[in-house]
């Protein structure tokens, strides 16, 4: 019932794949995973939302927190694979202009790694 998370290292980039609904119930689990990955200097993180069926503002808050850590550490972070419902909440909150959003994983990976 809860979130399924997978983390895979691709070169210098940690790729986090999320499956399921990110909401007030499940976002603490995501937060724990992301905070593990963002605190190194020059951390590189790609969040793959391709299998996220729902996301609410607690999910966004988690991603913002990750981004803030990454920025402080001179790292780089992108998100990819947004389905329509997930794209919607990024637009509603104008976070589509704050995050680096890529339609496909490979392009995203290239940018995050560079």
């Amino acid at each position, binding site marked *: *019932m809860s979130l399924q998370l997978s983390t895979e290292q691709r070169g210098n980039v940690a790729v986090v794949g999320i499956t399921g609904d990110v909401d007030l119930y499940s976002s603490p689990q995501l937060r724990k995973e992301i905070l593990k990955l963002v605190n190194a200097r020059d951390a590189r993180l790609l969040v793959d939302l391709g299998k996220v069926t729902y996301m*609410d*503002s607690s999910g966004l808050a988690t991603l*913002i927190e990750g981004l803030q850590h990454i920025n402080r550490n001179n790292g780089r972070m992108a998100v990819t694979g947004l389905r329509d419902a997930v794209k919607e909440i990024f637009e*509603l909150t104008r976070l589509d202009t704050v995050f680096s959003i890529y339609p496909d994983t490979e392009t995203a990976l290239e940018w995050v790694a560079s």
Partner: protein
Amino acid sequence: MEDGMELERKIARLFFTIRQFKPRWLPGKSIRISINSDPVYLRVLRAAMDEIAALAGFSRKECAKIILAVDEACSNVIRHAYHDVAGQPIYITCRITPIKLEIVIVDLGEPADIKSIKPRPLDELRPGGLGVHIIRTVMDEVHYENLAKIGNRLIMAKFLPREEGAL
């Protein structure tokens, strides 16, 4: 059992208070869902809201936004009115009228300072502070009420989509 009795007393008071505040729904003419303040139940509510919004005639895309608004409102009840204490009731009532879908959310938690219920400025990037913005953007009417000593009521509504070619 003790806290069941306490809860029942609170609910009796709630009914009395809501009557004073003017009832917003007729039992039996609306769909009512009550969950408790544990985030694990939000997905039950979302599933039901999806079907209710679809029944009201909203597109898939609009249904998704309505689900989001209701989910955000209930998340706020759990966090701000109940301070993350589980097991407290949240009452959601939905009514499809000829012109709008009306959703009323009642809690028995800490009565809110209504003035403080506002979104953060969107350009001030920080985690949190987005729920109220989402609710206000998605819904056409949003009205928070502090039910004196009892709890809170949020009344929100979205106008039904006009039919193609209708006036």
